[in-house]
């Protein structure tokens, strides 16, 4: 036996990873407080306050020793079981078996007791009848429970790795298990929970009739706007709006993309810069600017009514306003998608058509357009989903035009407080967006022709036929002008005393929001906005790295590993993209208001919601850059003796620095601009900038709201700008197209 073989065998018997997770498990069980603490674990007040015997702070072990919460005790048994495996070799059949059984039973028991026993004893009536009153209760799980849960999870994954899953790779199996567990906990569980609550009657029993009553509500599906001049149901309104927005944004986005790639227009860089706007703009800010222009005392409205001598109306509130605002907000997104599509059509296809005697118009009609079509459908669906999910603009501009996302909000926070109705509305909304998401992935996925093969495909896109270039150019110019006006209005509006009534310029709003006083105790943040501003920065700052980590690990698994159920895994991780923020918000407060996971009102729920809302962004950034790294890099690292965790750490991550930075910045910025899920989850202690602004808008305090929004836009512009500067831009190697003189 050679030296290498000996050492390899020895390392098989020590199992450092297993020992690590066992220690983690026992620390969680015997040292850390089992239940969640009101002040958070990091305050450390609990250390001085009767720990470890005081009930509120006691670890599970001490609770058990005092004869309390005895249902936690079997966990000790399951934590002890893996000790049997420690002396064994990994190839030993019983090693894997022990770990799988211990992990599965421990995790299962943890979940079982968590759901069975709540704040009021047994959670289910039949348990009461079976075992009698419990006479005890429990709260949301805390740090101890969390450590024990992760220990069981990773003991389980090490067990199945030892039994040969994914070539016995501990890191990969563990990572898959981790992602599956958290996505299940924070995406599927709340959604499932919300589905269930749609069936709950007022007497707390389940009934399918309740669901159908609420589902067939006239306010949801009514068609009286067509038949009797009344109001249509929110579902129809949302659908109609989303289809309109999808069509218009796709059309505008396409015009832009064609103008940039296929005309000799100047200012192409400036146009591309516009695409950064929706990223840095909180979604409802466009709505505010629309009010400044077209509202009752808006500039345009006043000007027109003076000119024609007619009474100004509130025409903009409702469908027209939402439509304009969403078109403005989402066209850059469509542009971003379509420029990829339009550039992705291989130029040599078009050149081939030209050498085959097709003129410009025929080339466009018979080659370029058919090749773009799937991408265009894709952009439409994206606009559709964005419009459906948008919450801020309908809230600000909706008037009497009810849409699903705001109806959900009013069902929960309004006077009606009807959880069941909110759940039903959310299900309908989710149904629409999931259908679009499904169509995008499974129907279009098979039809796409645009591929970057990386093979020598150097050519230049032909210019558009003149008959198309002129309208395309005009549309792009008008839209750009409108966008610029909108943003000028926002900045200008933040300096106006009281729009439409007192138009004098003032710094008043900025002073109210962001005043600072220096005194003996140092800087005092006296402005009214500081509290929510710092909270937002803090929450977004915590959420961003976590989002990037989860996103990149998922991307790594998707691009680099093959395992059973990979397609389902991918679908599950990308699904949260199609779940509207309002739906996430509702499902989170329904699911996490009660034990076993009780985090409403804390900062944690905000962080968690951001992680899972923005995860698809991180995953996509990771996939995009990871698929550019040749797999032979990993393989060479693996053959040189590194394991897959070391390979990920030492080879993949350093090469992904730009992707990591991008994922960090985008998740940070998106967390700062988000509103739809946030508005359900904020609390007095953790108020976010966007919900604070919406609050100001509801109080008709537009000046402050706009000043705050302007500040946010500039803060985020700085963040994104810093990132662009650090990362630089990726370029596609094509022939220089400026040189073109003809064709």
């Amino acid at each position: 036996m050679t030296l290498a073989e000996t050492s390899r065998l020895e390392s098989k018997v020590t199992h450092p990873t297993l020992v690590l997770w066992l220690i983690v498990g026992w620390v969680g069980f015997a040292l850390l407080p089992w239940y969640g603490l009101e002040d958070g674990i990091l305050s450390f007040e609990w250390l001085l306050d009767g720990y470890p015997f005081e009930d509120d702070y006691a670890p599970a072990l001490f609770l058990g020793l005092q004869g309390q919460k005895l249902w936690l005790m079997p966990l000790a048994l399951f934590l002890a079981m893996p000790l049997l495996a420690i002396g064994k070799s990994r190839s030993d059949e019983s090693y894997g078996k022990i770990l799988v059984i211990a992990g599965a039973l421990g995790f299962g028991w943890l979940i079982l007791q968590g759901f069975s026993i709540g704040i009021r004893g047994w959670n289910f009536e039949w348990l009461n009848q079976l075992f009698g009153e419990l006479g005890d209760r429990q709260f949301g799980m805390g740090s101890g429970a969390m450590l024990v849960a992760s220990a069981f999870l990773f003991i389980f994954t090490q067990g199945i790795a030892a039994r040969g899953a994914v070539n016995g790779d501990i890191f990969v199996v563990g990572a898959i298990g981790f992602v599956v567990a958290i996505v299940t906990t924070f995406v599927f569980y709340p959604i499932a929970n919300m589905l269930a609550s749609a069936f709950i009657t007022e007497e707390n029993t389940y009934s399918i009739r309740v669901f159908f009553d609420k589902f067939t509500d006239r306010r949801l599906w009514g068609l009286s706007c067509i038949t009797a001049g009344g109001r249509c149901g929110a579902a129809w309104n949302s659908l109609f709006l989303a289809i309109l927005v999808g069509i218009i944004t796709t059309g505008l986005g396409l015009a832009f993309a064609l103008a940039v790639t296929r005309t000799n227009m100047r200012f192409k860089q400036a146009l591309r810069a516009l695409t950064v706007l929706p990223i840095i703009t909180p979604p409802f800010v466009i709505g505010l600017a629309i009010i400044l222009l077209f509202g009752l005392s808006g500039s345009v409205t006043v000007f027109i009514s003076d000119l024609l001598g007619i009474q100004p109306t509130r025409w903009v509130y409702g469908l027209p306003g939402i439509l304009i605002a969403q078109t403005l907000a989402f066209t850059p997104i469509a542009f971003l998608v379509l420029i990829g599509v339009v550039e992705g059509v291989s130029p040599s296809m078009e050149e081939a058509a030209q050498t085959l005697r097709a003129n410009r118009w025929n080339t466009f009609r018979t080659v370029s357009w058919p090749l773009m079509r799937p991408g265009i459908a894709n952009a439409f669906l994206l606009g559709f989903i964005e419009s459906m999910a948008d919450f801020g603009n309908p809230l600000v501009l909706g008037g009497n035009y009810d849409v699903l996302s705001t109806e959900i909000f009013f069902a929960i926070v309004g006077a009606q407080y009807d959880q069941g109705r909110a759940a039903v509305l959310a299900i309908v909304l989710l149904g629409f967006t999931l259908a679009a998401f499904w169509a995008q992935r499974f129907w279009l996925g098979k039809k796409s022709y645009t591929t970057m093969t990386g093979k020598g495909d150097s050519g230049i896109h032909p210019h558009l036929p003149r008959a198309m270039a002129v309208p395309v150019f005009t549309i792009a110019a008008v839209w750009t002008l409108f966008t610029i006006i909108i943003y000028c209005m926002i900045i200008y509006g933040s300096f106006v005393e009281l729009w439409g009534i007192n138009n004098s310029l003032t710094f008043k709003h900025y002073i109210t929001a962001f005043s600072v006083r220096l005194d003996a105790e140092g800087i005092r943040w006296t402005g009214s906005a500081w509290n929510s501003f710092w909270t937002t920065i803090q929450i977004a700052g915590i959420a961003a790295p976590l989002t990037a980590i989860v996103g990149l690990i998922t991307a790594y698994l998707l691009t680099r590993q093959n395992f059973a159920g990979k397609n389902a895994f991918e679908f599950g991780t990308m699904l949260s993209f199609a779940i509207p923020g309002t739906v996430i918000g509702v499902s989170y407060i329904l699911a996490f208001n009660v034990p076993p996971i009780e985090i409403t009102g804390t900062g944690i729920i905000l962080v968690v919601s951001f992680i899972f809302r923005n995860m698809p962004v991180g995953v996509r950034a990771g996939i995009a850059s990871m698929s550019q790294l040749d797999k032979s890099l990993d393989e060479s690292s693996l053959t040189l003796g590194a394991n897959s965790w070391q390979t990920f750490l030492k080879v993949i991550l350093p090469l992904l620095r730009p992707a990591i930075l991008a994922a960090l910045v985008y998740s940070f910025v998106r967390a700062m601009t988000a509103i739809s899920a946030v508005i359900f989850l904020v609390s007095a202690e953790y108020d976010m900038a966007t919900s604070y602004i919406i609050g100001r808008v509801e109080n008709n305090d537009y000046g402050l709201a706009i000043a705050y929004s302007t500040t946010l836009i500039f803060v985020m512009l700085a963040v994104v700008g810093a990132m662009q500067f650090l990362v630089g831009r990726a370029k596609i190697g094509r022939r220089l197209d400026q040189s073109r003189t003809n064709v």
Partner: protein
Amino acid sequence: MLKPSSKAASVSFEGVTKIYGTEVKAVDDISVDIAAGTLVTLLGPSGCGKTTTLRMIAGLEMPTSGKIKIGDTDVTTLPATERDVSMVFQSYALFPHMNVLENVSYGLKFSGFNKSETRDRALSGLEIVGLAGYGDRLPSELSGGQQQRVAVARALVLEPQVLLFDEPLSNLDAKLRRKVREDIREIQQNLGLTVVYVTHDQEEALAVSDRIIVMNNAVIAQDGTPRELYEAPASRFVADFIGEANILSCEISKISGKLADVVTGSYKLKLPSRDLKPGNAFLGVRPNRVEIGKPGSKNTLSGEIIRRTYVGNHLEFTVKTEVAELFSTTTDVDAPYEVGDKVSVNFAAKGPVLLSH
């Protein structure tokens, strides 16, 4: 079947320059005439301007200055659509949303043929390239070689005045490459087409061409038949780029008439002077013209074998001599020399040529 083409036309470049941006010269003042019915190859390393030249013939790029004529027509400012030229792309550029027959019919539809004529011509085009019966397939359902042949058929059926190939074989594997290039040559000869062909593979160029134009740094380095280029390269660059060559420094001691007295080390030769002046110059010798003999022979270079490689149908030697390491090949696979043997080296009579820098 398609008939031998009566439309094949000549191509001429008069002082054509192409500048990208403001200063990048892709093609610098090129003048060349390509006779009708010949296959001419543009050969050169990447970035030498050969593809830009080809694209200017196609009308996909416009020259910054100069004049391009196809036949007797000045086409300098005509776009691709209006030139009677068709092109086979490196990536084939088959339209993925059309089947093979639709792809081949594509150009015919825009050339004023009626439906049945279009169909007949497309089908006979497919027959020429050996793909009769494949009309209903999608390009994605074909192998790389078949896709390539569809691309050729699509360009061929238009009976263009000039047919262009942009590195058509670069996406095929080595065995298929030989077969396809022979097919292309055969079709070109049978139909009497004017073909301009771009490649960076010198062996491919030698095999298919009537004439090769070697380009380097945006200008023409040499223009001639394959044999001229191989046996009498005009410059060090051409000698090195086409085939393998030993390049030695040498000195021209005297010019008498068309002959030069050349010395390299202790080896004296009389060679065609090629208009060079006395002084330092270079000597190019193909490996198969380097002969190895017993040591101590008169008027040779003496050296030592430092490497010997058996490659099946021939032997390769590397000999360290007083002037340079020389690379030699011989078809005599039983040649009795081993590594370490002292030998003498001389050049075959028609072997060495003088080269300018």
